[in-house]
């Protein structure tokens, strides 16, 4: 009976998840330009993968995406945890309002959020440049989106603003699942606030933290809109992301073979990250027998 219930989901997942992956894998061994007819295309073996590995631009995009992922996830976790604890500590009535406020940045579509930040970073009209000038820290607005170092970190700031709240919401749910009597027992034992946070909250929240970090890392590795909307990948190729490559080869260049090889390499990276996290999470989850 259980198998019958699983079949519809299995068909759905096979059709819409595994079939495209298999098809992309097949495409990656063929020379396909402006056509996806691989049966009549030239088989090129690993040539497309070699082109991917040789691409300097791809290595640059890989470096940026990795740096972006580490930085955004770390900051979002720290800020999200702070938000969750602050929200959890207030009166339950106020908690509902705070939860709604928290979800707003996350609910804004990524490309709209990128446009909003483009204006905030704008040299003539942007508030950040104005504030820095008004406080006398700089004599002219910094080139937030055109200086390579500033551009990378501007994207990270915009991304942290948008996604920290999502982290906060998920961690808030984790906090709510920690039984109050454990805190009460800790208090009776004389544990102070910091000790209770370190020895009760954090260990019991760890499974939620790991799952949240896993999901956010996977999203971050596939980041596209923030970079596209804020800098268009510039200055130069500084903020090109891994996803940009697969997109361009598929849709702008119409080279399905090389595009598929890029997509497969990105897919394997994401899978590896997922495996590491899942193994870590498994050890911290206590399943009921």
């Amino acid at each position, binding site marked *: 009976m259980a198998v019958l219930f699983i079949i519809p989901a299995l068909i759905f997942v096979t059709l819409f998840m595994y079939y495209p992956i298999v098809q992309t894998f097949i495409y990656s061994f063929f020379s396909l330009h*402006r*056509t*996806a007819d691989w049966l009549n295309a030239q088989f090129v073996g690993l040539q497309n993968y070699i082109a991917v590995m040789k691409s300097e*631009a791809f290595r640059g995009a890989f470096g940026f995406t990795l740096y972006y992922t580490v930085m955004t996830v770390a900051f979002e976790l720290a800020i999200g945890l702070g938000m969750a604890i602050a929200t959890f500590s207030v009166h339950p009535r106020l908690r509902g309002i705070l939860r709604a406020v928290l979800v707003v940045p996350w609910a804004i579509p990524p490309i709209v959020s990128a446009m909003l930040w*483009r204006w905030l970073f*704008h*040299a*003539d009209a942007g508030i950040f440049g104005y504030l820095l000038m008004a406080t006398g820290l700089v004599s002219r*607005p910094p*080139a937030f*989106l*055109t*200086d*390579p170092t500033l551009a990378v970190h501007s994207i990270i700031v915009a991304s942290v603003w948008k996604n920290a709240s999502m982290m906060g919401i998920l961690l808030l749910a984790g906090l709510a699942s920690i039984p109050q009597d454990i805190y009460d027992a800790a208090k009776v034992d004389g544990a102070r606030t910091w000790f209770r946070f370190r020895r009760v909250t954090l260990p019991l929240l760890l499974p939620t933290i790991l799952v949240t970090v896993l999901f956010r890392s996977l999203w971050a590795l596939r980041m596209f809109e923030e970079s596209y909307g804020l*800098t*268009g*990948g*510039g*200055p*130069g*190729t*500084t903020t*090109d992301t891994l996803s940009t490559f697969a997109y*361009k080869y598929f*849709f*702008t*260049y*119409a*080279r399905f073979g090389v595009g598929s090889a890029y997509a497969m390499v990105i897919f394997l990276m994401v899978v590896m990250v997922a495996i590491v996290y899942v193994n870590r999470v498994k050890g911290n989850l206590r399943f009921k027998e």
Partner: protein
Amino acid sequence: MKARSIFRMILAGLLILAVLTACAPATPQVVEKVVEKPVVQTVVVTKEVPVEKKVVETVVVPEKRTQLSFAGHQYFNMSFGPAPAPLEYMRQVVAEKYPNIDIQLIMQPLDANKWHDNLTTYWMAKDPTVDLLYVVGYWITEFAEAGWLMPLDDKVDPALLAKYDPAYLDIFRHNGKLVALGPAWGGIGGLYYRKDLLEKYGLKPPETYDDIIAACDTIRKDNPDLGCWDWPAMRNVVLVNRWSEFLHGFGGTYFNKDGTCAMNSPEAVNALEFMTMLFKKGYTPQEALSWKEEDANVRFVSGQTIFFTGRQDLLFWIDDPAKSKIVGKWGFIPNPAQPGGRHAGFPEFWAFAVSAYSDNPEEALKVLELWGSLPTMKNFNLAWGPIQGHSDVYTDPDVLKANPNLPLIEEIAKTAIPPLPSANYGEITDLLQAQIHSALSGQISPKQALDDACAAIDVIEKGP
């Protein structure tokens, strides 16, 4: 307990309602019959009426309707002049002449890169979603080479084609075959300058790039906060358009006669070195590297800068005091050129085409002819401004009245340069965007950027 009773009462009520509904007399069905040809039938119906008279009723059988999808952008729903928004007018003329054809707009992104990618995605899947499309001249080689556009020469009325300027039609030809009709609207790059400031300092409008630098140095001595020269340099396709003007202005070209890349020639390197210098020395602000066209437009019309390179469409509202602070204080001339180079304006001319995968090619061609005729082209002019390919537009009194700057535009139009002629236009320009932007932002030298670009372009064009 109480809740359960209420639930039971609601359930019983719903059951009674269901039984009553089932017992009710059947609702008469309305069936719409679709026939192939539009005909008006007269049917004589005999009815028994109280006065016992025979009544004759005329029944119009509904005709088959064709829906044509048109890929255009949001501006088709907007007008910037005295005429209605183009799409409204285009639908109106179709409804008048072909009442059985409906036009549906398939909205495309304003970003030309995204628009290009949308269209190619449809075509690579041989998808008939798009029947008619608005297409820019620099996509023609790529789209026509792939066989995605329907050839028009022997399908469009020769009398209508004769009304079009042959030079404009050539933009939409590939290997001698016409694949789009237009332009319905066109943009071309030129140099805007602050006439009042140049006159104040006794300077002539610049002829060469060096003249611009000299003028800026003179004027900014007294006005250090004034910008020198703004132009959009964000990493997108417009950057390549602007760069093409510099390239030709310094005497460069895209390809050698043998088809190899010439974009790293000494002239081309000089052009990119000059562009890089503009940023290094502050003639163009570094922020311009993240500017789209509208960012640079706004700075010029708000009086923040002396020179601005952009399309002629700014002329349509540059003297509107509600939008501009430089009413009557500007001039518009062809882009400068160094000795040995040519004054060059990059044309962004847009025309109508029919998709090779359209399910309704005959209807699409009829509509294309209608949209290419004088009334629609005149409406484009009055709604969006010049440039139109239909020559009769420029003798129309309404057009002449609405376009006092027409002679200026004609001068700029003479400087039109061809777009990069490649069947891999999307790929090559994307590569150029990255390389040029890397040089402008000081990450690699101009020579290195162009050498790398040419090495990759030769591989793309001729294979490894």
